[in-house]
């Protein structure tokens, strides 16, 4: 199963912010999108999950054209993980996760026994089973992000689209979310994640694509893409990229903006 974009244009209310985007993500692949604020990463992700309609071009999943699919059929293929936020209502965590399955029932129906089981299963997958009965609004940002991930998993889609899932999290929660994502990718999920952390792209992604000037660069291997020159071009500040050795003896790259 592959998610393919052909010459896609996307943006808000008919003004494209990104044009001519072509790339594909397969099952078991982790693709990161890097780009400055306002470059159109979010517009692209929202188009992928059906919040925005494509302005031009095509999206295909498994060779079938996206435009012919209903919102419900799309939700069965691609799940969206927004940045964690506090909703107004203090829903129970298990209810929030079960909402991931809403498109499976007719409008007038609700979760059945098997849906509650699937929701609990999704919580198990992100190791948050002890939070099922808590109120969502009482959780910390990191915990909420995990719950939103569980909600996407309860949706049982093959592809996960994440919009800066770790941006507001502390280091511990960042690592926990990324490790969970890596595990899901090795289980066969396809992941597309927008991020402001080049390092996360280096550690987790199979491929990285850079968004800028209304275009998306062809996705390539993170080590090839994330050079000081490219990073400087993205963020307009000088960058340092150094090689270090990890605890497991394997080398890895570290990149950081240079503060003069």
């Amino acid at each position, binding site marked *: 199963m592959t998610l393919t974009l052909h010459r896609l244009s996307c943006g808000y209310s008919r003004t494209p912010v990104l044009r001519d985007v072509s790339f594909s993500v397969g099952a078991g692949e982790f693709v990161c999108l890097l780009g400055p604020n306002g470059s159109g990463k979010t517009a692209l992700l*929202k188009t992928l*999950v*059906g*919040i925005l309609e494509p302005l031009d071009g095509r999206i295909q999943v498994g060779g079938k054209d996206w435009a012919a699919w209903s*919102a*419900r*059929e*799309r*939700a*069965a293929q691609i*799940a*969206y993980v*927004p940045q964690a936020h*506090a*909703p*107004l*209502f*203090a*829903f*129970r965590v*298990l*209810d*929030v996760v*079960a*909402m*991931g399955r*809403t*498109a499976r*029932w007719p*409008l*007038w*129906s*609700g*979760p059945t026994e098997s849906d*509650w089981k699937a929701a609990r299963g999704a919580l198990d997958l992100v190791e948050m089973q*002890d939070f099922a*009965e*808590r*109120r969502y*609004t*009482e959780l910390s940002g990191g915990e909420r992000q995990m719950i939103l991930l569980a*909600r996407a998993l309860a*949706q049982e889609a093959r592809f996960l689209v994440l919009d800066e899932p770790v941006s507001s999290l502390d280091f511990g929660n960042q690592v926990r979310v990324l490790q969970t994502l890596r595990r899901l990718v090795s289980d066969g999920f396809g992941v597309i994640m927008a991020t402001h952390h080049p390092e996360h792209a280096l550690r987790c992604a199979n491929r990285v694509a850079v968004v800028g000037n209304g275009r998306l660069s062809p996705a390539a291997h993170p080590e090839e893409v994330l050079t000081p020159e490219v990073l400087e071009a993205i963020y307009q500040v000088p960058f340092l990229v150094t090689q270090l050795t990890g605890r497991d003896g394997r080398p890895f790259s570290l990149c950081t903006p240079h503060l003069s």
Partner: protein
Amino acid sequence: MPHRVEPSKGGLLSAQTALLAIAVAASVCLSLRIGAHPLSWADLGQLWFPVGSATVDRSTVATLVYQIRLPRIVAALSIGAGLSVAGASYQGLFRNSLVSPDILGASSGAAFGAALGIMLSLGIAAVQGLAFASGLSAVLLTYLLSRSVGGGTFTLRLVLTGMVVGSLAMAGVAVIKTLADPYSKLPMITYWLLGSLSAITAADVKVLLPPLLAGMAVLMALRWPLNAMALGEEEARALGVATTRIRLLTLLSATLVTSVSVAIGGVIGWVGLMVPHLVRFWIGPNHRDVLPRSFLLGALFLLWADNLARCLFAGELPIGAVTCACGIPVFLLLLRRASGSWSE
């Protein structure tokens, strides 16, 4: 420390719901007895199953019960339930727990129609019809305006244009009040604006019930997807929910329920705001449970508000004043107790 919240599936058929239903039934029986002309159980009983010796003759009791008290009780129950269910639905849809059923201008529009009808000396049925039509028109105007302005989400635009249309309608009411005959028409308009069930007849109830029940049935059916909508429309759409359809159905049904309630009972404030709040505080925010519970609690609340309105003093009190007087202390108490439990 884990916070236990009642499981979702237990809501509708739980013991609490049953108790509340019993309380409603008991209140109906009590409400039949009390009033300007109190009846004993024996008086009341002779209509269906004679117990003991009645002191009032049967035909008087029959008139009192079937023509005066029962229609009024049914109206109080159904308007209370309707406004509460509509309020809870609007609050979920607009993701704002301070939204009340007149958010889109339904009540103000209906008030304008009724005031106009009274000024023009129309009959009671025509006043109700005009109130209903102008309530619906106000919401339609809100909807059309919100489509023509830019900026913000559709929901936000609806709330803002609803405010505009509501203000416009109230300005119209103010103009009518200055023009209306101060001895005959003005008191009627003022009384109507405060809400009253005193003039309810069996015929009113027959007009009221079908649209009210139909609207509530749709809202009840949509209560799980309403949870997804309460997360935000974008998220709901990404979850594969047919957001446009659900929004339209919810708006239509809640507006129908509100407009017909206001057309029959006048502007009765606070019910649609306070009852869903109380329910969420009690059992949590899952609309699957909140709507049925709001239905029962709203019916119970408005029935007793109306009992107070008709029994507290020799003359009738406007029910809107009673709901306000009862609602505000409860609401303040909730705000005190619940601060922080809705969101941050």
